[in-house]
């Protein structure tokens, strides 16, 4: 629940913004990060940006998410075996 996702601000007006992470876009608020502007990357938690992060940090997280998604997809295809042995 306390996970925040990095995303780039692609539109902003006042404290309402649209953020983009790996092609997914959604509405967010920048109320908690007034210093964030267009083009900045922010960590977003429950619809709110909580801090700015740099490009490199964001890229590492995006790559990690991609890898997790890929592994989970493979697991699903392998028959979705879950649970204790």
């Amino acid at each position, binding site marked *: *629940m*306390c*996970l*925040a996702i990095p995303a780039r601000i692609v539109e902003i007006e006042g404290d309402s913004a649209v953020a983009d992470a790996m092609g997914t876009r959604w509405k967010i*608020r920048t*109320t*908690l*990060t*007034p210093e964030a502007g267009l083009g900045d990357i922010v*960590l977003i*938690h*429950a*619809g*709110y940006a*909580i*801090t700015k*992060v*740099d490009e*490199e*940090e964001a890229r*590492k*997280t995006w790559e*990690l998410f991609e890898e*997790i998604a890929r592994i989970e997809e493979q697991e699903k295809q392998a028959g979705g*075996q*879950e*649970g*204790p*042995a």
Partner: protein
Amino acid sequence: MNFDQVKNAQGRMAAAVEKLGRPIQIMEVCGTHTVAIFRHGIRSLLPEGIKLLSGPGCPVCVTDQGTIDAIIELARRNDTIIATYGDMIRVPGTEGSLERLHRANVRVVLSTDDALALARKHPDKTVVFAAVGFETTTPATAVAVQAARREGVDNFCILSAHKLVVPAMQTLLGGRNDKIDAFLCPGHVSVIIGSAAYRPVAEAFHRPCVVAGFEPMQIIEGIVRICGQIETGQAHVDSVYQAAVHEQGNPVALGLMEAVFDPWDGPWRGLGVIPGGTLRLKKEYESFDAVRRFEIHTKKASEPAGCLCGQVLCGLTEPTQCGLFGKTCTPDHPVGPCMVSTEGACSAWYKYKSE
């Protein structure tokens, strides 16, 4: 993960265990860490003698049964809409869960903005936002409460079960589980509160506190730094997540929390009443407090029979030691909240332990 880096890390951890002459117990306070640790198989990479304990870092898990029952009670009314984050709807109350109630008035929201929008859309109902979560989540609730007051959205209120991480760590060390040698501190809670917030834990209890993000190598590096401190008899705050966490945290978010909430001695599941560990609305915002508006008297409710969640949350018991684990209690049919939430220790063990 880089093989050489992992090997080097393993060596440093093992050296610390050897120097100490006993196992080292490290608690990851954050449920997101618990999931990341399992997902990346980090436990299997640790040398013998390094033991990870999952702590009280899953907001849904630490919400006491009385509060959950109160939310479910509110959902039974015809004049309310319950707005909640997704994980909460499956938590078993004493009588059923929000999900089992099948009530049209229970809505999953992704942000407090959505909850406030519901209130504007349904002026004939009172929207109650089930406000659970740690410091990462609380500022957004504060924003919504302030907006509701500013805009006169009087049919909006919150049931606050917001929790603070540091008082919980102090309570654990103060008696519930003093065998914890160090803490791996949560990444995104720390974005808000800042790494300096752990100083009272590190200094007063002489326990290393290291803030880490959620990448596998960063978690491993966090554990290595902890071992380094223990090996040399030090205990201070350190961070391997400087990319996002500043010493003083996010001042805007902290200011909002302080403007809207007061800490009070509220109940936590498993840990009991923690001094200053829960947040409730300040007097000037009390008209937005669901407890006051609906005159809720939370009863002391008992835990689900046989469920050891309370001990699991303190790092005293591993989920598999619970007699119900994987038998009558599974993610599809959870008995306790630690199996409900995807971040709960029982759920993480169930999902990943066999791998």
